[in-house]
């Protein structure tokens, strides 16, 4: 969900960009992080805890807590809260600690 009206901030007309999330086509806007775009689409579960597989979401937004780590363009453990969304990005949920090269 995105802010529609705000007394101070102007979000105005934004430029839509596309990316895939676990193979599904999604969209966000220029200026989004990967995490903010997913959150806006209602996707709150960004990762699973390594041992107990508990669902984890966005927590700190400063690249500190690791609960938003995902695989982006085949690179695991990407801190999606401080990663700018780019057109054509391939975003996936990570399995465990992630593999060094997901595509190998």
């Amino acid at each position, binding site marked *: *969900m*995105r*802010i*529609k*009206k*705000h*007394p*101070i*901030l102007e*979000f105005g007309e934004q430029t839509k960009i596309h990316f895939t999330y676990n193979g599904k086509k999604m969209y966000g806007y220029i*200026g*989004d*992080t990967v995490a*903010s775009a997913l*959150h*806006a689409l209602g996707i*709150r*579960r*960004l990762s699973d*805890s390594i041992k107990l597989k*508990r*669902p*984890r*979401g*966005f*927590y*700190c*937004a*400063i*690249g*500190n807590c690791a*609960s938003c780590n995902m695989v982006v363009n085949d*690179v695991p453990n990407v801190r999606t*809260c*401080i*990663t*700018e969304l780019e057109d054509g990005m391939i975003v996936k949920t990570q399995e465990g600690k992630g593999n060094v090269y997901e595509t190998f």
Partner: protein
Amino acid sequence: MFMKHFRLIIIGGGPAGLSAAKIAAESGVKSLIIERDFKLGGQLVKQTHMFFGSEKQYAKTRGINIAKILINDVEQNINMITVMKNTTVVGLYEDNVLTVLQGETYTKISFDSLVVATGASEKFLAFENNDLPGIYGAGAVQTLMNVHGVLPGEKVVMIGSGNIGLIVSYQLLQAGVNVLKVLEAAPTIGGYKVHASKLKRLGVDILTNHSIKKAIGKDKLEKILVSELDDKWEFIEGSEFEIETDALCISVGLSPMGNLLSMIGAEMKYISKLGGLVPVIDHHHETTIKNIYVAGDVCGVEEASSAIVEGYLTGLLVSERLGFRHKDFDNLYDDYNSQLDNLRSGPFGVRTLEGLQELRGERNVK
């Protein structure tokens, strides 16, 4: 092997780091700012509220606009200030060398002097299921809303009534989110009365002596269990009640991020009044490791206004030590110190002053 070298490296492109780079440039010192985010400005970029303090620290200006001023100051100085964004410092070594990670590339860079301006991170709170999606740091929600225009949920509960908790609650209302309750474990509201009154006028309940006992939900937050606390901060049996909510913000203070300083072996002290573990520093803002300086929240959690002034002061001092004395050194030195004294003269400033005395060993806490 060829290694890049900078006379001055500043870790962190927030208010303290940007200000330090500006004054260093004015003094004639070229610097490199390393920032792990993809943009400069630190946490100012989400602060839509107007600042207190005096005109010199941009009072009555919104944080988002202060960020623009500070970023512009740096960008005007491209001959003197180099900026590396999307870059995380992962190693700091005794021979004045850093390892940085940018994308998937590790690089070593050396320096003569280093200013660590890494800021602080939000504290977490221990309760059952505190890792459910939908539980956020209050500052993180501020970023989500005010930077990206994304709402955290429909019905929010805020834990903590310090200034951040109160301000973010108000900003949630501005963004159109329903703030159900603010819970405060202490018997009194932590932040400024003016912020609390604004919320109360808009019908938001601030419940003192209350805290969260557990979060409930399957894949995301659905409900929380709240309990009253007695005067020893223990849950009162039988006082529990549930609140249906899809977003919980945790605003229970900040911890200085001095991990790099601990890594290099700088002497650290736990000073509760400064937010936690902070480096021992001298009057030049130098740590116990020669040529490593600190500025901003990393050496004691305060407001962004103080971080800006500390940045200026540290930039001034570090440049002088490097042999580049600012042409207006004496005036600026006095001015920055008096600005810091002013900022620390309010009711919250006393805490900082006492914390700093404790850090310098001038005050016995026991």
